[in-house]
């Protein structure tokens, strides 16, 4: 399959904007002999909820790392919101929110200290900052844990804090690396609603996850990456209206069946099990 793909939005005004929110061209990242991301080209329009899928080790986190400044690519270019992005693009970084792999929390801060730190780093004024920190802690059910160190939090609570830190400054693009894993069902439902509202306002979400059902119901567009290359890219919202997804001349009624077809993962039963 061609590794150069474009996804045009079909949402509101912002989604129809000519300037894509994310534009990646010939992105390559090597770690020694391993090419984690191989000549990847991708465009995501504004106002879209974009799911980035792939098996373990396919290059999802490396790609998101390159798109957020965590990793410097060996080749290729990245444009966010129409501007060239590198790890030194400070002004652009102010306009994006990131929930990185491993959450990147400072474990020995309290939740409110961590959120305050993030808000200040993004230049929020003190009044707005305090208001948002208190509101976020309350709605995420962390108000009573305000003075508890993050190291003492459960995995789900840590994820909520990392999510709160990613959105505290109202970014224009939100990068989320596996946002739903380990969060309780009520928390997942809330995050989904927030993300829908987020993109309805013309902003963009780029997320990786392994929960295909969630992607199928939540995302507008999906890219499936395999061995550092895009294996499929398309609109999955049509599944809701009964249409199927096409790939290599075949039709697929679920994202899972398409994923398994593309990734080529076959499993065998273990006789002794």
């Amino acid at each position, binding site marked *: 399959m061609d590794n150069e793909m474009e996804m045009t939005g079909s949402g509101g005004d912002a989604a129809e904007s000519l300037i894509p929110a994310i534009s990646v061209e010939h992105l390559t990242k090597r770690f020694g002999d391993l090419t984690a991301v191989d000549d990847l080209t991708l465009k995501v329009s504004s106002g879209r909820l974009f799911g980035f899928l792939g098996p373990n080790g396919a290059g999802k986190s490396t790609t998101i790392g390159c798109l*957020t*400044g*965590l*990793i*410097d690519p060996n080749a290729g270019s990245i444009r966010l919101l129409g501007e060239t992005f590198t*790890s*030194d693009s*400070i*002004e652009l*970084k*102010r306009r994006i929110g*990131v929930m*990185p*792999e*491993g*959450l*990147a*929390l*400072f*474990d*020995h*801060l*309290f939740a*409110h*200290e961590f959120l*305050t*730190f*993030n808000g*200040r*780093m*993004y*230049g929020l004024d*003190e009044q707005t900052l*305090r208001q948002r*920190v*208190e509101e976020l802690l309350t709605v995420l059910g962390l108000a*009573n*844990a*305000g*003075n*508890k*160190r993050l190291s*003492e939090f459960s995995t789900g609570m840590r994820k909520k804090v990392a999510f709160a830190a990613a959105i505290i400054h109202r970014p224009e693009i939100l990068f989320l690396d596996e946002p739903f894993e380990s969060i309780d069902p009520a928390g997942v439902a809330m995050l989904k609603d927030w993300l829908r509202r987020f993109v309805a306002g013309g902003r963009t979400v780029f997320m990786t996850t392994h929960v295909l059902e969630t992607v199928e119901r939540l995302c507008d567009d999906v890219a499936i990456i395999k061995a550092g290359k895009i294996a499929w890219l398309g609109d999955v919202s049509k599944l809701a209206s009964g249409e199927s997804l096409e790939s290599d001349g075949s039709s697929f009624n679920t994202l899972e069946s398409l994923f398994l077809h593309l990734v080529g993962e076959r499993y065998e039963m273990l006789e002794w099990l």
Partner: protein
Amino acid sequence: MRVFSALVRLRYKLMWAQVRTDSGKIALFFGLYLLIGVFAIFMALGGLGGALAAVELGRGEMVARLMLAGLMMNGIGLSLLFGLGPSEAFTEGSLRRYPLDSQERFVIRHFIGLLDPVWLLLIAGIIGLVFGFIWFGGESVLAGIPASVLFILANYLLTVTLLTVIGLLMQTRRGATLLGALMILLLSFGPLAISSLTPGTRDRMWQVVDLCLRILPPGAAASMITGQDLLKVAGGAGLLILWCVSMFMLLRTIEKKPRVSEPGRAGAIVWDNLYDQTAGIFGSRYRPMVSRSLRYHLRCNIIRFSLISSPLVILMLRYLIPGYGEKSHLSMSIAIFFILSSANGAAMMLNLFGYDGAGIRRFAVLPIRFADALKAASLASLILRGIAFLVAFTLWVIIYRNRSLTWQAVLIVLTVSVAGMIMFNGLGLWVSIFAPKRGDFEAMWNNRLSLGANIVVIGGAIIPFWVMITVMERIQPETLSRLWWAPALFLVLCVGFYGFSLKFIDIPLRSRKEKLINLLSGASDN
């Protein structure tokens, strides 16, 4: 038994895996060199030499008791410093995944702990001592060998019990503070208290210490090794067995106790506290980062301990340096303050990202230059080290105000200390990116500095001592005072070096960013 041997093999496989890294190879070289060299020294000098001296003096049992007590203290001290036993792969929690009952898990954990290289050194000393007594003193092999085995076992169990109790205390904030205060009191006032005893009281104190040693494992082992009759040997053996059994039971009881983590304290959010206000002096760009570093560093046990204990070294000034006297007071003060400037808060200064864990990734995605985070941490360390220095300096002025403390002397000490502090802060920037190490935030005793950082700290202690001895030999104190302006030049150089480091640290950091993130966030182990 197969699980047992598989786990022992795994322990050494993990060690070998660590050795395969670049820093691991260097550590292996030094480790083997030290192990072989020190093993021989422990055997020959510590053990054999002690035994020979004991036989010649005709006070075999007493010398053996003291020698073994020294080895026991070394075991405890080294275990406190370097940690006891292998990594987290062999904790009780990790071993629970294997088909082992609680008794088997206990035996495996402690058998692996006993195979720790540090303990081989102590075993060498004990073997050397026993061998010396058998060779030179004609003592019984039949008593000597079981004595050494029982002593090693009792010593290990005593140490591991002590460390477990400390570990339990460290789990609570109050316990950690209590323990820190106790250590500081022992370190700072212990030597002062001993030195202020009258000769008679001191003799009586040593008698009490000797009496205590007799009922402790060193005394029991000594009476077994040098015992002339069966009753004495049996008594010593009985006492050692009693120690082993009681420590074993105590350890089992402590380990069986469920560990409860301290609940978080509920309370109102304080928005603009002292950390934020202090960090405010660096402007809005650095304020959040410096503020974060300040509170983060002050919550880290090893850093807190280092900062609190360093000013108290001043109280021990005269006991630290042999040959201390009125004449050499100034040169020794300069040396001690310079050493303080390298050791004070070294865990933070030389490993600026070391305690951030996975948080280091966040610096890369925030709207800042990655180097800004390093610079902010360095500035925070300078503030904290500066406060600790000011306390030390005030103590020095108060304590030694009667020792012909001229304004030139005060100025020299002040200038050299500030210069040293700034110079080491500059070095800290480079060491933090070229020799980082993932630190254990909760640990208080383990020396978690990298080889490079250790070289800086040890160099920071050895060089001033060497300079001080040279100065004491060649320059009169009056002449030294007249050179009060010279340290100012050194200060200018150090400020220049720190400024240069702050300005150009971006360049190497840029190429090492990903490696640093992977190493410190745990994506790869050092």
